[in-house]
């Protein structure tokens, strides 16, 4: 089953918003193929009837009361912004949904 192609890596990079260069694609494709080949061992247990563990602790129902806590000031919120305008985060044009 394991094995990953250059095309798959390119697709994954797009999903992950990484503008990989051509030589990087080749380099990573080879390395990832090795890694996936090795870690694919886990599927040995795929058919075993054991519950998956998503959380290392058996905690449930950790909730907070619906009480307002102080927010950051807008200046603090925007303090790391690469660009801002009108007290808002200024970002390049957004494609897609209208």
């Amino acid at each position, binding site marked *: 089953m394991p094995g990953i192609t250059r095309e798959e890596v390119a697709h994954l990079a797009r999903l992950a918003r990484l503008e990989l260069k051509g030589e990087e694609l080749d380099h990573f494709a080879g390395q990832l193929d090795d890694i996936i080949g090795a870690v694919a061992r886990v599927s040995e247990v795929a058919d075993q009837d054991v519950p998956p563990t998503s959380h290392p602790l058996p905690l449930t129902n950790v909730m907070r009361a619906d009480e307002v806590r102080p*927010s950051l000031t807008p200046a603090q919120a925007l303090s*790391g912004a690469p660009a801002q305008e009108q007290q*808002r985060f200024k*970002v390049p*044009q957004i494609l897609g949904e209208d």
Partner: protein
Amino acid sequence: MTVTDLVSYEDALASYDPVMGLEVHVELGTKTKMFCGCSTELKQDANSQTCPVCLGLPGALPVVNEIGVESAIKIGLALHCEIAEWCRFARKNYFYPDMPKNFQTSQYDEPIAFNGYLDVQLEDGEIFRVEIERAHMEEDTGKSTHVGGAAGRIHGASHSLLDYNRAGIPLIEIVTKPIEGAGARAPEVAKAYVAELRELIKALGVSEARMEMGQMRCDVNLSLRPNGTETFGTRSETKNVNSLRSVERAARFEIQRHAAVLSSGGTIVQETRHFHEEDGSTTAGRIKDNAEDYRYFPEPDLVPVAPARDWVEELRKGLPELPRLRRARLKEEWGVSEHDMQSILNAGAVDLIVATIEAGAPSDQARKWWMGELARNANETGRGLDELPITPAQVARVAALVAKGDLNDKLARQVIEGVLAGEGDPDTVVEKRGLKVVSDEGALSTAVDEAIAGNAAIADKIRGGKVAAAGALVGAVMKATRGQADAARVRELILEKLGVEG
């Protein structure tokens, strides 16, 4: 806008059977956001209600708002759902600048509520059962403003500005099972479902569910299949249809559009569509291809939610009377038709009328003002009835003034106009505008005498038995008194003075 081919609605239904799925997002009315303590108050300064958590700053972690969970359970119970004994949050991964973490904290295969139904009543009184697939908890996104393009549209914009005050506000997403068997009434069912759901949410007190403010948003998924077949067709997903009327129009439009495509031998593309209020049309959005992969996985920063059974039962006991049953009761009490009750519901007037009656107005008066003058004003100004700057108590006061004879209908309308214009409460408006009915018999008598003298020919007709002609004289008196006379009393006086029996 591209011109879309449509077939007539009747022709569409003659060949095809619509299947609908409705996804409604409700913004909860909690004081704080779903995963942080930032206030949810609307219309505040940009980015003034943000913190490391809802800005998705590195290192910040979410903590669940217990009222968010409680509200979700209440909604689930009111929709006759099962409540999960154990469920988790999941991350829905996709990049979008309005989503600070670039994943939405949501629920995936373990929703908190599932397998329910909502009975909705159609205009002719028929009850239609809409099956509920699930209701789950998630969070809202921030708001973007697009700058440099036409009318704030995304296309052609040079850049966008982001305000994250809304990011993280709790949402409950309610998803129906495929709605089958509604046939030609599918659009009506869609509208009735959303209206009923809105009433339910409001009755539960978990949200004000104002659609015009985005507190309740509906996506309409629709597909057609040839009549008599079972397999669903390919669906379109019309996003953000944000009024009851639009829900109905969007469903109708899509039925006509799908039918046109299918009957001309085309295929429906699975895509999102945008609804346009101006003409009720939809246009193509994003194509849902395989590139979309949300890579859901259990949110590791939050622990599972396992609502205790006694808590769930306690919440069940506290549920209010279901809106449909309450409306049936009110319909009886008020003595109105099914159709009128539906109109009242659609106008969002049920609670306002009830409150007005509780404030002392007779039910017919309360209905008359909210569904007449006030509904008109709300419509003209693009507001919800409950957003008008007039309270049920003030409407009740106007009704009381009419009942006392201090106002006639015409004056009452002016009083309401004054209240809406911010001139004060009804009594203040009456005072300031000098709107009292002229009840000074002497002045009225003089005005009647003058009217008779000035309209001798009409007066003669009346004397001659044409009582109906009195209307013209009443009109003259009303004009002379700038509408402030009691028309009934004026008529009495005219007939009296002309020696005719009324």
